[in-house]
């Protein structure tokens, strides 16, 4: 029966297509050599797969920083041993890696995961395993409600949403359309936009969710155009960010395009080409570090990280790598302050960190705030002639 054969083929193919082949585990299987006396730190990053934009710079940053720390004598005289796992952006893989790191490797802390969906998937596992989690993802829910062992180094998406609305108010925009990718980051961001719309007097005329592997958004944009929106907000971390910009120009859809802090990666600007110019988005200060005044508290740190990263990897540093940088420096600072690697003591020490300068902003942790960042961690930026610059209000 040919019919059933094709059925089977279609089934096999769709499983492979949807789940992604398991072949990319190459980066994950770096066997952990036990170094006596070292402090074990686990990392779960989506080094490959659709969120590789986040995971790859995070892994590179973590490795670079640990080398630097160890070369300077380590922490409390002990070296840090990184165990990096590649989750390929899949919450299922992140979950099994979290179990592995906690139960088999008994790590002190886990850095990552890169995406919000993965972070939420392992939040409870880390809490129950009493292992410190320093997530590099944006979603609010990671640290709200607070789980005692769960922290995050990336700024909250609600700040990004509020910055966008603040800018819209200045431009007199009242009616908007939202596009979001169908993943943790996109959906969480859309929820924040919906939540803060009424108090900013913004009407959401249409809201669409697209597959993260999409290659064409003209249909969805056409729908938004039909609703006569005054601006489009796209919330995602996937390559579709460049696609939205291109498709809008292609359709002659001439309204301001706002994007989330996920756009803060020069690669999207390159992929979007001339279409990326004029995109308005909130982001941390790493991208425009050289434009900061010399007395800005973050300037020195940002310039140093940027220089080290770019000299070593010959690619542009991104905020996402910065989140891994912050997570690691927060952890090592807490270990130093606690004077021990007892999980409970290190956890308490993180909660006590005040005025800690990171790449994402100035962290002020407390029992209630496991993110430590505030609205000032973002700036509104735009793209001009293929380069990031401050968004100047008219």
């Amino acid at each position, binding site marked *: 029966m*040919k*019919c059933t*054969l*094709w*059925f*089977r*083929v*279609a089934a*096999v*193919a*769709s499983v*492979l*297509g949807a789940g*992604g*082949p398991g*072949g*990319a585990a*190459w980066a994950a299987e770096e066997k952990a050599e036990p170094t006596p006396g070292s402090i074990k730190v686990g990392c779960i990053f989506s*080094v*490959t*797969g*659709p969120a*590789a*934009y986040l995971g*790859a710079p995070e892994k590179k940053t973590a490795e670079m920083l640990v080398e630097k720390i160890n070369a300077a004598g380590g922490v409390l005289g002990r070296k840090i041993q990184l165990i990096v796992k590649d989750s390929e952006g899949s919450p299922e893989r992140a979950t099994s890696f979290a179990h592995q790191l906690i139960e088999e490797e008994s790590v002190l802390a886990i850095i990552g995961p890169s995406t919000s969906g993965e972070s939420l998937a392992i939040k409870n596992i880390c809490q129950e395993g009493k292992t410190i989690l320093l997530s590099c993802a944006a979603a609010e829910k990671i640290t709200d409600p607070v789980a005692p062992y769960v922290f995050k180094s990336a700024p909250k998406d609600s700040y990004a949403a509020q910055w966008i609305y603040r800018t819209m108010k200045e431009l007199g925009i009242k009616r908007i359309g939202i596009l979001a990718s*169908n993943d943790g980051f996109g959906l969480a961001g859309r929820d924040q936009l919906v939540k803060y719309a009424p108090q900013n007097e913004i009407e959401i005329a249409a809201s*669409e*969710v*697209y*597959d993260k*592997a999409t*290659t*064409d958004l*003209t*249909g*969805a944009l*056409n*729908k938004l*155009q*039909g609703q006569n929106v005054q601006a489009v907000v796209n919330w995602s971390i996937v*390559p579709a960010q*460049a*696609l939205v*910009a*291109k498709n809008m*120009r*292609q*359709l*002659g*859809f001439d309204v301001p395009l706002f994007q989330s802090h996920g756009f803060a990666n020069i*690669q*999207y600007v390159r*992929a*979007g*080409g*001339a*279409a*990326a110019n004029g995109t308005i988005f909130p982001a941390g200060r790493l991208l425009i570090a050289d434009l900061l005044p010399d007395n800005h508290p973050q300037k020195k740190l940002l310039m140093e990280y940027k220089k080290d990263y770019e000299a070593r990897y010959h690619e542009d540093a991104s905020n996402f790598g910065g989140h891994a940088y912050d997570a690691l420096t927060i952890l090592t600072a807490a270990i130093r302050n606690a004077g021990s690697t007892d999980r409970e003591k290190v956890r308490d020490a993180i909660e006590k960190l005040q005025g800690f300068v990171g790449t994402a902003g100035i962290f002020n942790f407390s029992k209630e705030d496991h993110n430590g960042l505030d609205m000032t961690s973002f700036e509104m930026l735009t793209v001009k002639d293929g380069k990031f610059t401050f968004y100047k209000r008219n």
Partner: protein
Amino acid sequence: MPIDQIAQYCFSGITVGSIYAIVAIGFNIIYNTTGVINFAQGEFVILGAMTAISLAAWMPLAIAIGLAVLITALIGGLVELIFIRRVKRPTVLRLIIITIGVSILLRETMLHVWDEKVHALPFFTGTEVSSVTLLGAHTSPQVLWVLGACALIVAGLSLFFKFTAPGRAMRACAANRTAAQLCGIKVRWMVTASFMLSAGVGALAGCVTSPVTQTQYDMGAPLAIKGFTVAILGGLGNSVAAVAAGLLLGLLEAFSISLFPLAYQDVVAIVVLLAVLCFRPSGLFGRRDAHVSGEF
């Protein structure tokens, strides 16, 4: 719905549909000579685009694309020589599983050779911001290149299969393998040639679509699924039907957006695939006996 919005949906549908159609045509070429569905077809598309993007840094765009098509065709031939030809007892299902393996292998190799980042070829005419107006709908000039390439590929392949000796030989292999062999046709090499041809067609598709859809190492699998749906919908082996089916699916998907949330777009494709497999396994345009040539 205002008329220019309808025109716009049509254009979106036709653009996406013609991309599906070219991938489906790649499936058909190999199916015609071997009875096998090559699930690495999507990877050929990405490989072609990636190669062209790298080469374009060194040479004019047209030459880079030509070379990329050639290189991908050679790799397609190699895939056949290394993986398909050596199978001791080739059954259709076994070969299909091998092509799925090859697709994973190609994908991971591309990840190592290039990187995980998104790339794009420059626009052939105009830039990212150019827009042309046709029948009230706005579109990128690159979309016209895509449509043109699709038409060219279909016309070229029809002529090739009808009027040239190798084309006829390939069709002979499909119609009756033993008879073709008795006529002196080197069936084995025809299979290799079909892999090269479909890889080349895929690569060309990858190059013309890259400026608008962008290219990333892992974009092949979703493309292959859609292409497969279209190939089945049109009737396996029939390239003109694949174009019709591709446009049909593209239009269905585009107009589904106007009624349902965008998130259900893929549901449309899968429902169509399941319905066709259940009620008309030979496809919309296929003859009922068209699907019996599947012995290798």
